[in-house]
């Protein structure tokens, strides 16, 4: 009889092939249509912003993990996903040094100070952008025209569809919003690309349908009701859903597993809350857009939502 070298471990003895890497790299794959459309509309500026973000996010993560005496592991893909997401929510003409500053902030204060992967409370990419929004509001609201391929930072100020709507009461054509031919952050303009990527994530079961569906439900529902009541004052729901960062936020930001609730009911509450907050900020606050703050606020509430939506005990 052969000599046996047996492993005695606790059951189960089989595991699904779906790992953390699968989840994170699938997010990166799903972002590709958005990235390509961003490059198509905003040219090399998009490439520049994404590359600066990648370099600074990865370097910062590396240094921090070394300082924390951990083995750096970029194979899990979480840092790459954060870097790309962060770049996609920035204006294409943003100077590189600001991109770099926000990237470092996102990794340090959005992720590593909490303990790294899995422990952060807020979405790191959004933390990075929120920091820049507070520090350099002018740069963060300077937009460029799509399809004007200039690498040099040009202070040609144009407004985003939501800005135009809020301050000039002008509605951009839905067709342009759908294809992405409008001013805005690198990754937020093309609804089609975001829906493709989000659909892929739903299909491979990386994200749960509850969060995006409940965001669209509450936001779409509120937009519809208010538009029906007063179509002069409020914009139609289709415009509201396609414009700005709502879709990108719903499919790629709010679905970040780490910063959303774990209970089934909690995920619905979380999504509904984001939809309501976005609607409130867009219509009654000073800013034209509110997806970032809405998600960050609900991120902060996620642990509380978990506690308040504990599942019903089996058999009670």
């Amino acid at each position: 009889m052969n000599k046996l070298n047996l492993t005695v471990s606790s059951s189960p003895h089989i595991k699904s092939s779906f790992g953390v890497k699968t989840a994170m790299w699938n997010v990166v794959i799903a972002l590709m249509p958005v990235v390509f459309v961003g490059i198509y509309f905003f040219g090399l500026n998009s490439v520049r912003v994404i590359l600066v973000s990648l370099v600074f996010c990865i370097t910062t993560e590396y240094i921090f993990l070394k300082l924390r005496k951990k083995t750096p592991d970029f194979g899990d893909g979480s840092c790459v996903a954060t870097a790309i997401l962060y770049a996609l929510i920035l204006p294409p003409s943003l100077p590189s040094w600001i991109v770099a500053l926000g990237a470092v902030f996102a990794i340090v204060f959005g992720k590593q100070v909490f303990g790294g992967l899995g422990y952060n409370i807020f979405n790191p990419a959004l933390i990075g952008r929120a920091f820049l929004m507070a520090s350099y509001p002018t740069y963060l609201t300077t937009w460029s025209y799509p399809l004007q391929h200039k690498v040099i930072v040009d202070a040609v100020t144009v407004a985003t569809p939501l800005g135009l709507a809020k301050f000039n009461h002008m509605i951009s054509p839905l067709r342009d919003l759908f294809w992405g031919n409008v001013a805005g952050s690198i990754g937020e303009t093309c609804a089609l690309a975001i829906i493709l990527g989000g659909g892929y994530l739903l299909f491979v079961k990386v994200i749960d349908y509850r969060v995006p569906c409940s965001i669209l439900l509450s936001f779409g529902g509120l937009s519809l009701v208010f538009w029906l009541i007063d179509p002069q004052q409020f914009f139609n729901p289709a415009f509201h859903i396609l414009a700005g960062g709502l879709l990108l936020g719903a499919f790629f930001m709010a679905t970040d597993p780490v910063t959303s609730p774990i209970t089934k009911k909690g995920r619905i509450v979380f999504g509904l809350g984001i939809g309501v907050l976005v609607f409130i900020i867009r219509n009654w606050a000073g800013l034209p857009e509110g997806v970032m703050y809405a998600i960050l606020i609900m991120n902060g509430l996620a642990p509380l939502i978990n506690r308040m939506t504990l599942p019903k005990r089996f058999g009670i």
Partner: protein
Amino acid sequence: MSNLKTGIHIKDDTILNAPFFKGAFIPKKVILPLSQHTGKPSQELAEKGQVVEAGEEIASSGGFISSNLHASISGKVEHISDYFHPITGKGKSIFIEGNDRTQEWSDKKESAVDRLSIEELTNVIKQAGIVGLGGAAFPTHVKLQPPEGVEIETLLINGCECEPFLSSDDVLMRNNPFQIIKGIQIIQKIINPKRVIIVIEDNKQEALERMRQAVLNKNIEVIRVKTKYPQGAEKQLINTVLNKEVPPGKLPFNVGVIVQNVATCFAVYEAVYKDKPLIERYVTISGDCIENSGVYLVRIGTLVSDLVENLGGIKKDVGKIVFGGPMMGLAQASMEMPILKGTSGVLLLSGEFAKLFKEYPCIKCSRCVDVCSMNLLPTKIAHFTKHGKIDLAKEYNISDCIECGSCEYVCPSRIPLTQYIRIGKQLLLEKKSE
């Protein structure tokens, strides 16, 4: 077609499935641990040097929840001493050296069985040392005597066999449908339920057909459910079929249900119709390391090593030996382990199944929450256990966990959730006893 709402779908098309009956195996020696079942170990009757016949009682029930034990082959009792035990690690066992004498059991007439009273039938089942053959090995005669005043509405017969790679019940239902039905009718007579329902998962079409033919003109239903793990667990099965939830810490009879495995029903048939005690059972021998994988009729107490040798040996290095299925089975430290009454399968797996994964931090993806059929938050409970917060683990109902392993199966961070929960339960017990 109903099915479990939670739980997991495990890919079934692996080479590890071996749903074919390959024959019976009678070993030269057997080692019978006195603890074969849930409850108190049996008390030995046989003495060293005594010659016993297959089917002769060699140990008797050691308490209210306990069971008799019978010699599974004819031969001489070599000695009675401690030996490896697949579940408890070590336990007193009876060693029998075979003498090649065989034993036959013939069928009694149906009319003779009809004359037996409920008490007599229960006694036959008790005498025969029958325990639940689905895995838990709870003494059947105890389960068939619910407390006074409890009315049993439904008898559920479990033919789900939801653990992947195991086909023992599948083969049994294909080979012996009429005998299983006779066993069910005996149980039916004892507990007198309003409904009897046999539940079979839809990956066992042939078994379904055979069982459906066998229940024609009888007051027994056969229903098909979608294949889903852990649908065969008692509480989950009751939930799927009857849409009832067994309260925490309660047993199925609290909601008017008794669940019996098909193999147990077959054992009841053999005990009543043939006076044959529980000395053999269908066992799935599978895994990527074994030649001739399949389902075998194996005597209780057969050593895995004997079985493997007889089947043609192993074809690659064994990295893990599992008693039971891949989801809930127990890994063994040796091949010299005896088959118990509750052993439905033995898996000989290569190193591929033995590799240990790097544990990533929880990314709170909530897959474990979504699959948990007991509505628990496995990641939270594991986290509390890891950090010694047993009170919190208790508050999150750690004791409700049935340890089906679904959460760990789906966890992308490869956190050994089930293991943490087991540790937590242990810590909770220790805390209570303080």
